[in-house]
């Protein structure tokens, strides 16, 4: 009894911070999303959300899923090259390059992508100058593809950092053992490395999802306005209308999307553990 009291006292300050800074705002936005001004229960805000923004919600889900899939493929590819490549010079260059986006804020990345991807941006100008296409054939990549490119470019550094760290932590002998049994590098990646770094890949992708769901600058700067991502809608509701209930209802939808992916990840990792034992 006494021990449990002192334990409570010990975790008290930390618990209080979580309650005050996370649970209370969460609860407040929940309440605000489900109630009218007189605090009576209503689903009106959600009805409004789905009437006005169901396209944006679909758009957001598609952007998030495509970004995460591309991220997984690219970061596993880079991390595998770093771990398995027989060319130390290539590895050194790649190890330096892939980290750069870590130090660039989203808003700067978005600005760079604007000048790079626009119809008369750096990329198209280069292609025209190289004679690959004529100025009439150039297209602007601003819009959904630009948003995905920016998210993947920016988050690639983070997820590669996590995944290549996990790969580097594997015992080198395990790779050599597979090698002298005749396995090619691709087989080693699939049979030996990936099964062991799966949990880290999951963490990297879930964290990237949460980041992508919360960035405002990229859809605002690179998007075409409509459809746009949920973050832009929330900002619009709050800034233009002072409409907190609908903004909070939109927030709930983002929570649910993140929670859905997190559930998928947890279920998958529990299944893997169950299959092993």
């Amino acid at each position, binding site marked *: 009894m006494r021990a449990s009291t002192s334990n409570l006292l010990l975790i008290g300050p930390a618990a209080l911070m979580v309650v005050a800074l996370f649970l209370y705002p969460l609860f407040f936005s929940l309440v605000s999303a489900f109630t009218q001004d007189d605090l009576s229960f209503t689903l009106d805000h959600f009805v409004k959300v789905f009437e006005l923004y169901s396209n944006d919600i679909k758009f957001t889900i598609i952007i998030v899923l495509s970004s995460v899939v591309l991220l997984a493929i690219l970061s596993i590819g880079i991390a595998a090259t770093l771990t398995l490549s027989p060319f130390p010079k290539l590895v050194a260059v790649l190890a330096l390059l892939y980290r750069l986006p870590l130090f660039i804020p989203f808003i700067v990345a978005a600005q760079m992508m604007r000048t790079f991807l626009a119809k008369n941006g750096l990329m198209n100008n280069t292609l025209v100058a190289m004679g690959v296409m004529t100025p009439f054939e150039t297209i602007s990549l601003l819009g959904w593809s630009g948003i995905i490119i920016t998210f993947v470019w920016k988050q690639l550094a983070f997820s590669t950092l996590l995944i290549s760290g996990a790969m580097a932590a594997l015992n080198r002998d*395990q790779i*050599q053992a*597979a090698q*002298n*049994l005749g396995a090619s590098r691709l087989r080693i990646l699939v049979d030996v490395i990936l099964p062991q770094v799966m949990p880290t890949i999951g963490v990297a992708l879930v964290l990237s999802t949460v980041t992508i769901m919360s960035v405002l600058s990229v859809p605002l700067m690179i998007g075409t306005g409509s459809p746009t991502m949920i973050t832009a809608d929330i900002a619009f509701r709050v800034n233009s209308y002072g409409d907190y209930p609908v903004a909070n209802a939109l927030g709930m939808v983002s929570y649910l999307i993140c929670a859905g992916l997190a559930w998928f990840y947890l279920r998958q990792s529990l299944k893997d553990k169950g299959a092993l*034992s």
Partner: protein
Amino acid sequence: MAHLDIRQLQVGYGDKTILHGINLQVQKGEMIALLGPSGCGKTTLLNAICGFVPTQSGEVHIAGHEITQLPAERRNITMVFQSYALWPHMSVAQNISYGLKVRKIPKAQAHKRVLDLLSIVNLEGFENEKVTNLSGGQRQRVALARALAVEPDVLVLDEPLSNLDAKVRLSVRHELKALQKKLGFTSLIVTHDQEEALVMADRVAVLNQGRIEQLGTPEDIYQQPETPFVADFMGADNCIIYKTSEPNVQLHLPNRSTAQTFALYFRSSATQVQAFSNSKNEAGLTLSGLVEQTAFLGQQYRHTVRSGEQVLQADSRECWPIASQVSLFVPPQALHVFDLATHETSNAFQSNLRG
């Protein structure tokens, strides 16, 4: 013709050369131990044979085919690692059959081979066990089975026993040797444990600073070390420099002039501790000194005896009291005599002098 033929192999990292012109011929079915202190290049030699590190020059041939430039996955040389290097996400059977799966051996056939191997390494019934549930000795036997599953041309073992505790090590050592005799695989084993090398190997190569100092049968290496380093490494770690007979150091060697300067190496177990006397002219080395320290080793006592500037170890069943004056006698057949004009003394010797 040798099954594994290593010619003038030179390996290094950057500017640093680790192996200098290694020549080694291994016959089919032979087990050779690479013995040496840490940093002598023995593991690098294994890695070069496996293809994990590039060679600077020289050639490696297996059964008449050159494999120097082949990548590791095409060499058919498998390694047993000190760390076992089993894959924790696979079962025992999956670990063992991995090489067969890569070679696209039909499943039924691979399964049969796994069961055969499990019975060979005494792990029947373990095929569905997780490797993380096994003890160190069991893991190393799984690793051995995995390496043998693909019937490698050469099996290399990199200190396979040094992560095991003393008792398990002896039993796995015994099993490994018995298996090697039974199956007759050609193998190279790296070890820093001289006893392990003597017990397991058909021939022993003692490595020092990237060169093979001596290659021979265990008996040769133990009884006729060719260099001071080999003598010292094989346990003859008492060393004195002999210039001329002095009252407390007397040397009489049959058939050999004692007018030169010699380095004499001998084992503490071959050194007899006797009551101090002035008797002379017995063939062999006679020293006198004071007992500084004794230690009980079970079978006998080890005495630390100071004779002039040198400190020597001598074993005796009798425990001589500290500070008593004794004579140490080494018979001529137990003395390894190196002419200092032709041999460099080893580092161990120099540290002995300082100590």
